[in-house]
């Protein structure tokens, strides 16, 4: 009984979604390389080493002087 129900569900699913083959959009129509190139060129800008050094210095400063956190927050 349950097996029959499951077969029916599989059939319902096939009829509802229908295989992609033969439908519009089943095959890629154009060349996606230009879009790929755009994506490659839009790589996020590199963070300069100086910014990383500054961030490290601030973290070290806050570790040694935790009392300075409210002062920093106030100035942000």
């Amino acid at each position, binding site marked *: 009984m349950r097996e029959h*129900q*499951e077969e*029916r*569900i*599989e059939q*319902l*699913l*096939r*009829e*509802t*979604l*229908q*295989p*992609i083959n033969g*439908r*519009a*959009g*089943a*095959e*890629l129509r154009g*060349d*996606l*390389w230009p*879009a*790929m190139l755009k*994506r*490659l060129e839009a790589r996020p800008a590199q963070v300069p080493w100086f910014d990383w050094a500054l961030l490290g210095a601030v973290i070290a400063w806050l570790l040694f002087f935790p009392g300075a956190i409210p002062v920093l927050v106030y100035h942000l």
Partner: protein
Amino acid sequence: MPVLTQPIDVLLRFCDGDLDAFEALFRQHQREVYGWIVRIVRDPAAAEDLTVETFWRIYRAHARFDPARSFGPWARRIATNAALDHLKTARRETELPDDLSSPLLPEPGISEEIRQKTARAFRRLPPKLQVAATLALVEEQPYKEIAEALGISTGAVKLRVFRAVRILRKELKRQGVEP
């Protein structure tokens, strides 16, 4: 799905981050990758974006590729992950639109109401189960191929399909459809 092969030197150059080698691989595999993704997401526009996203991930992972292995299955696995991520995001962002199946021809075998209820029940499945059920039951892809693309065993694929069908049965019953 056809298994495309490529010269080992292209793969070696790709591993070194050579853009020309990447372009050669892209042009050779874009259709296959798109075809796989569109079977999962069932939306040509999203599949095109995801094909580019897949190759972007492939390009970033070039150093991790083993040139002794085949490029196609590796690309398909990355494509499957990208499609899964898309399904997870789409599930969070949209409140179950009714145009998922978008069949070109209405299926005469079932009523429109049952079709919509089935589509709604299907969209409520966890994305991992959706992928397994679509590829296995609708697209009738070999279990071995699905397993490779998902990075799991064929037994695990069968379990996912079984769970998907069981949840669909319960969900359809809840909606008043007696399969």
